[in-house]
């Protein structure tokens, strides 16, 4: 039996619109949709469940307070949530204090993946893992140090003991390969 309009889950844009009308159920629905995804990256970066949960709660509270400033037509909500989560976690890790107020309007994120269902999230998870695992070990390590620990080229070189030039080449090659693989994912998704 096909689903009727009422059966279909609300889109991110519809839920964000409801949040601007102070609809708590809409916030709860977006939380259910994306909290696991954000919790995973926060825990990976911080390795501290309590800190990760504080930031998770704060991100959704920020969404509640600033939903009217977020334009779903300009960018992807899960993409924006991931960017904010990573920025906050890296800042906490490095004891920085980001200017959170500007994040909603500043960070337009185009993410041409459908992540509104858990099946779509699982599918992207498998593809990203596959893409990362296909990288040579040193390239994968460089990507992980940059993304999950917020390290610059020179910090990665210091951590791994490799020459700076080698690290730069390694990271650029890894990014090129990941981009190629993810673009093929996008074309399969669309």
């Amino acid at each position, binding site marked *: 039996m096909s689903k009727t309009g009422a059966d279909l889950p609300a889109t991110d844009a519809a839920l964000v619109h409801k949040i601007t009308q*102070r609809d*708590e159920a809409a*916030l*709860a629905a977006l*939380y*259910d949709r994306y*909290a*696991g*995804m954000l*919790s*995973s*990256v926060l*825990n*990976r*970066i911080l*390795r501290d*469940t309590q800190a*990760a*949960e504080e930031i*998770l709660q704060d991100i*959704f*509270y920020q969404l*509640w*307070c600033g939903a009217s400033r977020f334009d779903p037509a300009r*960018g*992807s909500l899960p*993409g924006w949530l*991931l*960017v904010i*989560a*990573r920025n906050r976690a*890296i800042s906490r890790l490095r004891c920085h204090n980001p200017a959170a107020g500007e994040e909603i309007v500043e*960070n*337009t*994120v*185009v*993410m*041409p*993946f459908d992540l509104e269902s858990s099946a779509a*999230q699982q599918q*992207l*998870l498998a*593809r*990203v*893992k596959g893409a*990362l695992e296909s990288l040579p070990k040193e390239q994968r390590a460089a*990507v*992980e140090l*940059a*993304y*999950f620990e917020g390290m*610059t*080229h020179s910090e*990665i070189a210091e951590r791994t003991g490799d020459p700076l030039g080698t690290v730069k080449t390694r*990271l*650029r090659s890894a*990014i090129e390969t*990941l*981009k190629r693989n*993810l673009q093929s994912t996008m074309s399969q998704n669309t």
Partner: protein
Amino acid sequence: MTNGHPTREEDFDLYVLGALECDEKPAIESHLASCADCARKLASARGRVAAISFAAPRVEPSATVKDRLLRQVRAESQVPSRAASESAKVPGREFAPPGPPRGIAGRWFFAILAPACIALLIATIILWRENDRLTKQLADLGVSVDKTQKQLADAQMMIHLYTAKDTIKVALAPKPGMIKGDGEVMYNGKMGLLMYDGWIAPPPDDKSYQLWVVPMEGSPISAGVFNPATSDTAHWMSKVPEGIAPKMFAITLEPAGGMPQPTGPMVLVGGT
């Protein structure tokens, strides 16, 4: 850079990734502020780079986070409306321009009214400050209540786990030749709840410990990543899928942050 544009598209990804050094960023940032085409490319790079997040092992947040969030949202929607209704009662907030004083009576009236207005203004400022102080105090109390409720919820779950008849207790012992330590796992499959308590030496810098539930059938399930860098004790509860029949529990040494499946050596292990 050509005409200010980054020469290769990967430059956007490297910028978003944060891999560029401080002295490499200003040129890109000043160009991005004035180039719509590059700003679009940057937005796409943000999406691509954000997808790397999916390499992180899946960790579900505890149910208390959602409860706290919704309580926070409700408290926020109550405070401004209360503040608004309070401010409406404060005399002097309503703006009503006085008419011009007329003649001697008007001047006398003005002479009396002016000090009264000043007094009202001072009273308003005092009340406004007091209101602000109380609002802050209320917010602090809300945070404190949240923390206490979380601790209470954890304590209740712990009591349920301790008292349930079908909770199993498994001692974890070190594998010969591995890092010293020991621990105990309490697990209840019906509740999907697991508690670990133990001590273990800190792992090397680039490693973390990861606790696994190894079911009778199927792949091991991660029950938490930990890194006792500052203390050699570890104690926590975590939610795992309900209804798993465990064969054993194991702690492995994994790359920092944990892995989706065990890859490193077993450090502590215990069978059911």
